[in-house]
């Protein structure tokens, strides 16, 4: 694509274009697509649980992982005409002339490539995964580039919340949720209040996780809702149990993770405090020593000579000494000349 930087023409990370400039170019491309009715897709890519990896393996390892993922992105998308820039620990990529089907193919390819990356930490090797938030301008709902960014951001958050290693389009997820909410409200209007709330929560959660099994159960439930049979109750209970078990397990995992993170932070802080206390002690002792040492502020001893002396005229063997001193000076002058760098 003439006029826009692509990886083959120059890598923005190498300094050819700043991130701000790339985003400006993306905005221009989005506007062009909107004006001429051409499809444009935006992807936000992030490494799953990068903060957790930093805590476990250090900042350097996390940076190396990020760099490898960037290289992977570059290699996996080299056949595509697109723009890319890094925003903190995420990558924003815009694909002009690409519809959602094309976006699905690209995102599948990226997810597969990311799964094949392995990193050696000195212990067991680790595998990483990525989450991708996808947003497209088809449908005409996204009229501004910022809305598209926001939509991709939502998709990324949903993908991360759903466990990562997936690409989600928030519009599609929200659309599905809205439709199911609508069906739910019409189909279950006669159910008991408490049971209905619980069912609604379970369905909402099940939809938000994106778990295929849960979604299948939800569809099965709705098929049965119209004709309420014992099968409906069974599916309902199974669904609710699954959702509750999942919620409980996620809650425990989150609490454990948070607790570990806090413990690590506390340990780091305690070590830091201990070091600082040690340094403080050393400084205090040194100050005490300096303050108490006699003549602590040593200004030195004055020479007995206020001016340059030289050989006294009536010194013993003055002539011989004068000659010797001249020779010492000449030899040192010669040495200095040898020490000076030669001019080119």
């Amino acid at each position, binding site marked *: 694509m003439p006029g826009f930087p692509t990886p083959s023409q120059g890598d923005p990370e190498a300094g050819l274009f700043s991130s701000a400039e790339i985003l400006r170019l993306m905005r221009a491309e989005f506007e062009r697509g909107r004006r001429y009715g051409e499809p444009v897709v935006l992807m936000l890519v992030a490494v799953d649980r990068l903060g957790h990896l930093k805590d476990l393996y250090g900042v350097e390892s996390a940076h190396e992982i990020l760099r490898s993922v960037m290289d992977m992105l570059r290699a996996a998308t080299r056949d595509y005409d697109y723009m890319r820039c890094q925003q903190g620990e995420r990558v924003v990529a815009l694909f002009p002339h690409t519809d959602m089907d094309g976006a699905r193919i690209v995102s599948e390819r990226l997810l597969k490539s990311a799964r094949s990356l392995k990193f050696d930490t000195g212990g067991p090797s680790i595998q990483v995964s990525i989450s991708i938030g996808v947003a497209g301008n088809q449908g005409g709902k996204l009229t501004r580039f910022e809305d598209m960014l926001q939509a991709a951001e939502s998709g990324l958050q949903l993908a991360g919340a759903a466990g990562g290693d997936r690409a989600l389009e928030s519009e599609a997820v929200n659309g599905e949720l809205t439709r199911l909410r609508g069906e739910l409200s019409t189909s279950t209007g006669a159910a008991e209040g408490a049971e209905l709330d619980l069912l609604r929560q379970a369905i909402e959660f099940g939809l938000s996780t994106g778990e295929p099994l849960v979604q299948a159960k939800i569809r099965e439930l709705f098929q049965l809702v119209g004709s309420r049979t014992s099968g409906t109750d069974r599916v309902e209970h199974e669904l609710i149990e699954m959702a509750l078990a999942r919620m409980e397990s996620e809650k425990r995992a989150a609490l454990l993770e948070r607790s570990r993170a806090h413990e690590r932070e506390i340990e780091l802080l305690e070590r830091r405090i201990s070091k600082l206390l040690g340094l403080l002690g050393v400084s205090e002792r040194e100050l005490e020593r300096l303050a108490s040492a006699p003549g602590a502020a040593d200004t*030195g001893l004055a020479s007995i000579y206020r001016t340059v*002396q030289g050989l006294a005229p009536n010194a013993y063997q003055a002539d011989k000494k004068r000659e010797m001193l001249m020779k010492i000076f000449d030899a040192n002058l010669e040495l200095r000349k040898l020490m000076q760098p030669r001019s080119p």
Partner: protein
Amino acid sequence: MAQDKDKEKGKEPGVLYLGIDLGTSRTSVAASNGVRESVASYVGYPKDLVAMKLLQRDTLYGDDALKHRLSLNLLRPLEHGVLKASDKGGAEADQNLKAARDLLKEIVRRARPRHDDLIYAVIGAPAQASVKNKKAIIEAARECVDSVMLCSEPFSVAYGLDWLDDVLVVDIGAGTTDMCRMHGTMPEDSDQITNTFAGDFVDLELSKLIEKSCPGAQFTIQMVRGIKEKYASVMEKTEPAVVELPVNGKPTQFDLTRQIREACLKIVPPIVDGLHRLIASFDPEFQERLKGRVLLAGGGSQIKGLDLAIESEMRQRLGAGKVVRIGEPIYGGANGALKIAHDMPGDFWEKLR
């Protein structure tokens, strides 16, 4: 402030002359403010952060560095009187240059200069130091003094005592023994001889003798050096040198009188060889006069009876000999260098700043 008080009293910032003897084993300074200091030529840098915190300093010198050597990267930047590896260059030479710089800074600091004084220093270099070695010493010194000159070490000893005519100076250091023939003018290359049969050589020979005659004794070269400095003698009748050395961890006494004498005597023939060459190549009319005026200087001159041993060897090989020991072996070179610094005209110092 001291400077303001001095100005009130009519005193202006002055000129501090320094005479520095940069030796393999010891570095000494004599200053025109009356300070005289000497430090063993060792420089130590803490091995790691733990060592730095323990020692609370980033550089140690002399005996202090030797005491804590297990926690330090210990350097002895001079070897045979010159900066180690300065001829070859590379990382080792850079390391030694840094250590020499730090050692010079330390010895200048110990001279307690006032911050506003001009510092003019003369440094004694071995008689036959190469141009590269001399350049390295000047480079090291320039960072801590305003102007610096080098001169031959044995010459500075003679100048300090006003012995400028028909004198043979034998300066026995740790790395080198320098011999210089003074005959009323500036000594030339042909007037100077350097050999490496000096203090370090005696330490090595003594180590070999101890190893041979005291099986199982555990010792280091620093311990041997300490034994030598305490008991060094070439006299037949002397106080017995009984030392304690660990054998398999248990302190055991050994009488090393014979071994010490034998090791110290080994430097006598090479010294007399050097003196022989200098005398034989001198004006024959003044050779006898030269034989009768041999000045023994440097740390090695403290070996008891060495003057008599050299005299005896000279009588056997050259027919005559008279050796005099310098009064201050440690500061003889530094005193002489100080005198040269004092006598040097001011405009010479300015031209070399």
